[in-house]
């Protein structure tokens, strides 16, 4: 049994499970720096390049963005690892939400919710910016890549272009050897 608790699968699933329960006010995008620290810097399960590739593939695939953890789970501990990680991230928070909705704690006039939501908004924004900053430090190793990030950022802020087009254009530019 000790071998199980020492296994990468167990450690990854429990760590991500705990993070998913702490990530309030912002969803799971906000805990990316911690996920990176845990799987790349602490355990060396993934290289920087693999971590970024998994994050990017998760963004470019259909479905909720947080499911990029599926790829980390698969890489670290195979198909069971993928399923365990998804379950660890999804099940506890869904059970809590279900319980709170059922008992009527969530609901009412929403005063507490508003208070928490407004109170956590600056923290959430900062966590999201931290996530992108950590990614940028890993990805933008030269000015070509940094310029591509900047162009993508400006396009997404100033136009209504669909993100998938921007990521697709990035793939084409990369394939052409420009970054």
């Amino acid at each position, binding site marked *: 049994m000790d071998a199980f608790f020492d296994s990468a699968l167990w450690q990854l699933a429990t760590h991500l499970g705990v993070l998913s329960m702490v990530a309030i006010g912002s969803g799971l995008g906000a805990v990316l720096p911690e996920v990176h620290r845990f799987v790349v810097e602490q355990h060396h399960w993934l290289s920087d390049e693999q971590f970024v590739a998994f994050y990017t593939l998760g963004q470019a*695939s259909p479905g909720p963005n947080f499911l990029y953890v*599926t790829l980390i789970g698969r890489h670290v501990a195979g198909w069971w690892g993928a399923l365990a990680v998804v379950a660890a991230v999804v099940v506890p*928070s869904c059970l809590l939400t279900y319980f*709170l909705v059922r008992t009527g704690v969530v*609901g009412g006039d929403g005063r507490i919710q508003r208070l928490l939501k407004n109170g956590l908004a600056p923290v959430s924004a900062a966590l*999201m*910016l931290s996530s992108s900053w950590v990614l940028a430090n890993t*990805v933008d190793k030269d000015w070509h890549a940094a310029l591509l990030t900047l*162009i993508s950022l400006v396009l997404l*802020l100033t136009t209504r272009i669909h993100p998938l087009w921007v990521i697709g254009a990035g793939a084409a530019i990369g394939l052409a050897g420009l970054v």
Partner: protein
Amino acid sequence: MVAPAEAARVSPWQLYVAFSRMSLGGFGGVFPMVYRTLVERTRWLNHTDFAATWAFGQMLPGSVVNNVATMVGYRYAGARGAIAAVLGLIMWPVLVLLAVGTAYATVGDLAPVRRALTGMSAAAVGLSMATGIKMLRNLPRRWRHFAIAACVFIAIGLLRLPFLGVFIIAAPVSVWLIWRAR
């Protein structure tokens, strides 16, 4: 908004199908698809209900859209509805990602694939930054909010301090400061 709805009943199967379609149609974030489906197409929620449900989803731990699926599923079909909605939301994307992961394990080391992924990643970082900047722009124009955001960004983004420790201190402090400033 949270009790099972009095009027319309929606079957768990309908919930499963609707959330499957939302998740498979949602590239780079499912929010627009969820809004379109729940408010404009099925009309299971009106705009106000949707905004409230989304706000609750943000406040609770875990993925926002998962929490929304749980709440909407429960509202229309109880526990079975909640399970159906969440399964619909995650099952197909997970299958797609398992296939993507297998493909990456096979060809991820090839030079053209690595080049394409580098370009994709650089663009995806821009997407992530744009989300953060939009969140920042939505904050009230008060120095207090931006001071809190700056402290958290310095702690997590620049100094890379441990997330749990920073969050456990920053979250209550932020809520308290902003509550006091009303």
